[in-house]
């Protein structure tokens, strides 16, 4: 049988839901972070770097490195590894520093 974090702790989660990532639906469970849900959906990158436009995703996974920044409901620079997924959230790939209004 496949080992999953849910099985390891014998979790019985509340019903799942979906949020939108770049227009596509992504399944999530209550309490999951955006990074965890995106990883589970097979997506490893959700940011493009300021210099060189290279892909980035979760690195430290615990809020320290700021590599996993994402745009959540129109707000840029949210750490995907800390922000909980919520039903119906509009999540988008973050490009650059997310502060085009200051340009």
């Amino acid at each position, binding site marked *: 049988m496949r080992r999953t974090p849910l099985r390891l702790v014998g979790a019985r989660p509340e019903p799942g839901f979906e949020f939108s990532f770049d227009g596509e639906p992504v399944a999530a469970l209550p309490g999951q972070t955006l990074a965890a849900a995106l990883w589970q959906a097979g997506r490893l990158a959700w940011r493009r770097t300021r210099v060189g436009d290279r892909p980035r995703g979760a690195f430290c996974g615990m809020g320290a490195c700021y590599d996993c920044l994402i745009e959540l409901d129109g707000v840029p620079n949210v750490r995907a590894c800390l922000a909980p997924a919520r039903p119906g959230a509009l999540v988008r790939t973050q490009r650059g520093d997310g502060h085009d209004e*200051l340009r």
Partner: protein
Amino acid sequence: MVVVGAGMIGAACADTLARSGRRVALVDRGPVVGGTTGAGEGNLLVSDKTPGPELELALESLLLWRQLADELGAEALEYEPKGGLVVASEPQALGALRALAGRQRRVGVRAETVAAGALREWERHLAPGLAGGVYYPQDAQVQPALAAAALLRRARAAGRVELLAGVTVTGLAQGRVDTDTRGTLHCGAVVNAAGTWGGEIAALAGAALPVLPRRGFVLVTEPLPPLVRHKVYAADYVADVASGSADLQSSAVVEGTAAGPVLIGASRERVGFDRSLSVPVLARLAAQAAELFPALRAARVLRAYRGFRPYLPDHLPAIGPDPERPWLLHACGHEGAGIGLAPATARLVTQLLDGEQPFMDPTAFGPGRFGKEQP
């Protein structure tokens, strides 16, 4: 030679002494740039100094920094001759700022008056309603940890400098430096470049040097588009630097970095070596920066760091031989200006050791000027 302290001053001294043909052991109880050098912004400023010996030292030092950037590569130091813009919010503060600029000009500082209406041509995001400012083209910036490392690398490559990091000096006497793990180092002279801890090193030799820590915080924002082009600070900063009070002083010092984050200082408090985070100080720094640059209200702060400036009661460094121990040269107590003043300090130390005519009169920096009082 033994140089105690592997911060910016120690690295500059090791490099200059090695280039004068000496063999140097550079000893630090921690890592390279583990003290104040690693906790600063890398200011190379003439703008915040009133005419006198410190400004004379700074003018020479800025020339030497330019030379170092040519020799080692500006990128290796992140040397940016970006210039400083000092702004005043009130007409009275502007009057004082312009009067200071006038006195600075007479001793070789370049200072250009900027009218209120022209401020935003210099810095597009400055708040409206400021009274005016002065632009100082000689002010510059380095990344202090990179700069110290680059100097040390050159010094060691010359083959005459040995770095003993993680080695604590336990005793000092003429001709010998005792350490905890490397035994006794025999030497002709010792340079005390221990910065904020310079008083402790002096005490090992039985000397008194009243260096005290003056704590400062720096806020680091998330990476932003180029928002602040120069080093920009409020005119009150000059008064804060000169203040002798133990209480909290803070005034906005704002600058962009090559990597994108904006650095926000500067606070000054005499609270000993207390490293605890002070939220009220951070909030005050953030508010003062946002007063100058309202666009910063939209920016998040990622982290804050702190350090301890080596403070001497008259705000001047101690550079030169100990009054009773000619084998011990002090080179510490530069407060918040040590990065800027490092190359000229190293030059002065080397000239004094060589018995050469120093490039400036070092009397004002004499370590004996505090008498025998204990700190």
